[in-house]
């Protein structure tokens, strides 16, 4: 699981970590029962406060996506079905941000839909062929 945090993103760091885990599930780089990095390792590699990672893991646990097993670590929950829940959820989040960005430039939903429709015809979407490089 590779995570890149952006301070220009505007969303709190723990939300960005949560979305990186969701994205890993959707890509298939994280599967049910897989271990997540320890709080210590992930906070050290991201250079963030360990509490931020703990907070992200606790929120993911509340959403039913991971299980925190005391003394053993954090694991993807066994019954997670990313295709049914996380893919549409992540898509909504990306769409929401795209829409906010559009309105920032004075564009409306229709402009965005048109542009997306044109892109879809020109560029074959690579949604599933991506490596894990987010």
């Amino acid at each position, binding site marked *: 699981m590779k995570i890149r945090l952006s*301070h220009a993103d505007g969303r*709190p760091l723990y939300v960005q970590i949560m979305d990186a885990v969701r994205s890993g599930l959707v890509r298939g780089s994280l599967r049910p029962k897989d271990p997540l990095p320890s*709080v*210590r390792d992930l*906070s*050290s590699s991201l*250079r*963030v406060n360990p*509490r931020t990672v703990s907070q992200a893991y606790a929120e993911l646990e509340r959403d039913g996506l991971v299980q925190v097993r005391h003394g053993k670590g954090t694991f993807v929950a066994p019954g997670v079905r990313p295709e049914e829940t996380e893919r549409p959820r992540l898509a909504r989040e990306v769409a929401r941000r795209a829409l906010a960005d559009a309105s*920032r430039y004075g564009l409306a939903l229709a402009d965005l839909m048109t542009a997306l429709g044109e892109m879809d015809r020109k560029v074959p979407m690579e949604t599933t062929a991506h490596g894990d490089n987010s």
Partner: protein
Amino acid sequence: MTEMVPAALPVDLGNGPFAVTTRGLAKRFGSVRALDGLDLQVPEGAVYVLVGPNGAGKSTLIRTLMGLVRYQAGSVDVLGRDPADRGAEVRAGIGYVPEDYRFGYAWMTVGRLLEHQAVYHPSWDAEYARRLRARYEIDPGRKCHALSKGQSRRVQLVLALAHRPPLLLLDEPTDGLDHVVRDETLSILSEHLADSPTTVVISTHRVYEVEPLVDHVGVLAGGRLLGQLPRDELHMGLLRYWADVPEGWRPPRELSGRVVRRNGSARMIEWTVWGDRDAVTRGLSEAGAAVRDVAPVSVDEAAVALLSGREAS
């Protein structure tokens, strides 16, 4: 010049528990008020960043917490003790990186200095000290006076961390470090926080360097706090609003005192405002402004907004 600017941001963190508090702390150097009625609250386990321009009082405050500066009014509590009369006990529980990178024991080798520190602190973790020394590529045979600024900083960080104190006071800890070593320091601090229960106060005027580690923010200017709050609250409550406005537009009265910084042009405003997002947006809209965008600001931007807004008023 003593006109009071309304405090837009909260300065009270409630009931604690706190590792460090000051009440009405005051310190003058001659006619200069270095600390001017300061109420500091550092929650236990927090990573508290103290932001402010040069001369804001950051180093004086930290040296006061260490018991190295005598305060003249108010009270100070550091880990349950007053550093003014129990300085040595207080200092034993603190890992301190001073602003000054020169060592008192300039003639000592680094290795000898580390041994010296190990004797002073019963909780010294020799294995940890060795690991830190290796990560920082510190040569124990070097004389302290021969170290560069960046090398001194690394030695000071090892001295501060290796006894795993309950409190770290880091005065400009990344000063003099190059990019790689600064990045390594953030990684070391992340691991330290994961391994040891620690309260950290970091003083810096380059908050962006330590921003991802920080969970509490205090903005200091002229010996006073302009704001003291959890980072999450700052993130939620201090937002930048972009709006198109008609020429000659007048801002809504209910926002007075909440606007931390005003930017913009004749028909566009870019304001940094403290308050509930929906309420501020509604207030702006009802006054005839078309709000285009609302975005959170980084801790660094928040500090700049607070400090420059203050100078402009």
